[in-house]
């Protein structure tokens, strides 16, 4: 075993070990559970950092695999690790963000009755994602893919005793499952064709002249993309993600940055050559991602709940990543995934500080409860929004620039124009959020709360506790990271796609200037409508109530689903229920009732009167004698 293998096993194994110990032995000891969870993630983070240092060399790839269940000569099930710049970088991002979220959660979740369980689930989430990132073959990927779905189900529904989180968790699980059907079929197709479906083998087989026909490649890519669409909340299957805001805010930070939704994008980056071998599918994906990015940007423009704004922005940014990947640049899409992980975690954790402080998700209510007293939150929110909007020199600028650049070379002008429009909208809704959240008057009002509903929340806020300091430090660290991550672009590009033209961080061309101008316009519009003194604080979309309702209601997609798919499913369930109750139960009940009734009927013969029996017996003998007499005696 080489050092890399040991490190890979440590990176995956330590969160799993932490999860198992916490969930089995430390349920009643929250402090120990948090410490163990953080320690496990720390080991995982260190191992991932070692992997990046050891393996992330241009063109390097390391595969170690062991067969644990041979099926027949050509097929078997194997377990292993695939280490190359892509997987190790992603592993570092996953462990780093999870570590930050865990540290933050020590403050945010303090006093929650499920504190230990929470850290156990976080470790489970991290393990599943690390396993997915480092997996060597597609079957293993599938297994961890489902584990990621399970962990997010558990965490979204963490406060399952309330109906809304329970429903949101169910919705997330079922909607992603719809896409996963396609994913499963795609994996099975590749498994049947290639036996082990080791990722480098799959990529080699998909290349022109490889073992797979172009037709098979297209079908497999389309099927795998179904899973990606479900997981990364794209196209028709995105409505689970805004509802997933019912989970604790640090969970949202994790789910939106490095784990759940990132899995889909990561898979596309992982199998990028396979997907690029199916140009028609990639073209469809490009348009789907573009429409999703624009549609969810409009939804973010009218949302009033700060977490929902962030959720829509995540879907929109995931759309950008997939556009970059679909346009042919693995490096640009993955680069945006990395920077997005940093600034989206930052945004959610800053939002969490405000939510923790104001006990409300509504931006209006947060603004009325002295948001400026939370200095770390303000810094985090502004830095994160600037990165989201793509303001130079924050991380989002560089990665979005790389994506727009790759679109410029690999897509039609219409796509590029719409993508630029989306960048402008992003700037508008990001700074609308900033101005609405921070521009309050200080008047107090009562409203709903999403902060952890446990005793003692009122005590905090006077003098920072250790937990609150952890929250602030985490946010500030991530804010610094947001400034730094943008310069990783060339480094990543050289390792992920050595052949691609290098895209320097400050290549200011027409495209970059146009993007910056659009971003400036978006921010200016937000300032005029929400930020300046005496602003009416009503967006231009909100002046058109019909449009605002349309945007605010997920473009009526949920209504459409309720009216069609859900209704059909319910009707089918009713029919199945009727069939079960009436036909199946009826048959068994009928059998039982028939037996009993038959018994009752036959019991009437048993009158109990001796003389009746005697008469019957005599009658029978007489009849027998008559018959035998006619037949001429006993034969």
């Amino acid at each position, binding site marked *: 075993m080489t050092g890399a293998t040991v490190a890979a096993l440590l990176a995956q194994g330590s969160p799993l070990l932490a999860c198992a110990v916490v969930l089995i032995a430390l349920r009643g000891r929250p402090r120990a559970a948090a410490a163990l969870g953080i320690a496990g993630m720390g080991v995982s983070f260190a191992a991932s950092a070692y992997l990046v240092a050891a393996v992330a060399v241009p063109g390097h790839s390391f595969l170690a695999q062991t067969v644990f269940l041979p099926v027949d000569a050509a097929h078997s099930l194997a377990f292993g690790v695939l280490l190359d710049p892509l997987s190790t970088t992603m592993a570092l991002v996953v462990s780093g963000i999870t570590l930050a979220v865990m540290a933050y959660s020590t403050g945010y979740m303090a006093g929650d009755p499920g504190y230990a369980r929470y850290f156990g689930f976080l470790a489970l989430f991290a393990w599943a994602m690390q396993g997915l990132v480092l997996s060597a073959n597609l079957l293993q990927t599938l297994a961890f893919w489902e584990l990621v779905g399970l962990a997010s189900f558990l965490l979204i529904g963490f406060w399952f005793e309330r109906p809304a989180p329970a429903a949101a968790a169910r919705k997330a699980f079922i909607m992603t499952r719809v896409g996963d059907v396609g994913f499963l079929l795609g994996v099975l197709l590749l498994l049947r064709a290639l036996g082990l479906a080791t990722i480098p083998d799959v990529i080699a087989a998909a290349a022109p002249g490889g073992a797979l026909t172009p037709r098979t490649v297209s079908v497999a890519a389309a099927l795998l993309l179904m899973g990606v669409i479900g997981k990364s909340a794209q196209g028709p299957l995105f409505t689970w993600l805004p509802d997933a805001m019912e989970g604790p805010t640090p969970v949202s930070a994790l789910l939106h940055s490095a784990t759940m939704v990132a899995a889909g994008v990561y898979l596309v980056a992982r199998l990028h050559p396979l997907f690029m071998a199916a140009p028609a599918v990639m073209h469809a994906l490009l348009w789907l991602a573009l429409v999703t990015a624009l549609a969810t940007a409009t939804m973010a423009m009218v949302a009033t709940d700060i977490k929902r704004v962030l959720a829509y922005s995540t879907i929109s940014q995931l759309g950008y990543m997939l556009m970059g990947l679909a346009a042919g640049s693995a490096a640009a899409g993955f680069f945006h995934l990395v920077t997005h992980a940093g600034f989206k975690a930052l945004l959610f954790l800053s939002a969490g500080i405000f939510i923790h402080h104001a006990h409300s998700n509504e931006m209006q209510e947060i603004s009325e409860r002295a948001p400026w007293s939370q200095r770390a939150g303000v810094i985090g929110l502004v830095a994160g929004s600037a990165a989201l909007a793509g303001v130079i020199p924050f991380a989002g600028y560089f990665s979005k620039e790389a994506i727009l650049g790759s679109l410029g070379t690999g897509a039609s002008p219409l796509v590029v124009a719409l993508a630029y429009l989306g960048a402008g909208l992003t700037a508008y809704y990001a700074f609308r959020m900033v101005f609405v959240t921070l521009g309050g008057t200080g008047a107090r009002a009562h409203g709903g709360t999403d902060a952890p509903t446990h005793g003692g929340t009122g005590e905090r806020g006077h003098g920072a506790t250790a937990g609150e300091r952890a929250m602030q430090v985490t946010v500030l660290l991530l804010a610094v990271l947001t400034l730094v991550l943008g310069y990783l672009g060339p480094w990543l590009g050289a390792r992920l796609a050595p052949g691609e033209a290098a895209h320097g961080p400050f290549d200011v061309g027409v495209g970059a200037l146009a993007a910056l101008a659009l971003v400036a316009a978006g921010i200016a519009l937000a300032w005029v409508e929400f930020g300046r003194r005496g602003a009416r604080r009503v967006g231009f979309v909100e002046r058109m109530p019909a449009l605002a309702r349309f945007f605010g209601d997920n473009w009526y997609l949920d209504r459409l689903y309720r009216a069609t798919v859900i209704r059909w499913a319910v009707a089918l369930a009713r029919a199945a229920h009727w069939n079960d109750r009436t036909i199946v139960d009826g048959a068994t009940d009928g059998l039982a009732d028939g037996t009993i009734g038959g018994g009752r009927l*036959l*019991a*009437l*013969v*048993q*009158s*109990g*009167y*001796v*003389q009746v029996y*005697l*008469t019957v017996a*005599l009658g029978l003998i007489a009849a027998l004698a008559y018959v035998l007499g006619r037949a001429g005696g006993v034969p």
Partner: protein
Amino acid sequence: MTWLHWYLLVALLLFCVGLYGLVQRRSLIAMLIALELMLAAVSLNIVAITSLSGSSSSVGQVVALILIGVAAAEGAIALSLFVAIQREVQSINVENLSELKG
């Protein structure tokens, strides 16, 4: 018609009377008496047939005597059972003895 036929006819009559009594009467004692009538008919048949068929043996009479003995024993057992039933259910009417009905 020979003598034998007359004897057989009387025995048949006796048997039918016994059978009718057995089926029609509801008292256990009456039923036992009817049963004894039927046994008497059988005994009569045996004696008549062996005596009048021309043989000189007295086997039929012996069998008839044994039958009378058996009937007496049977009567003793049946009556003791009736007493037990009377003590149990205060009745020897068979219509009251239908606990075994379904």
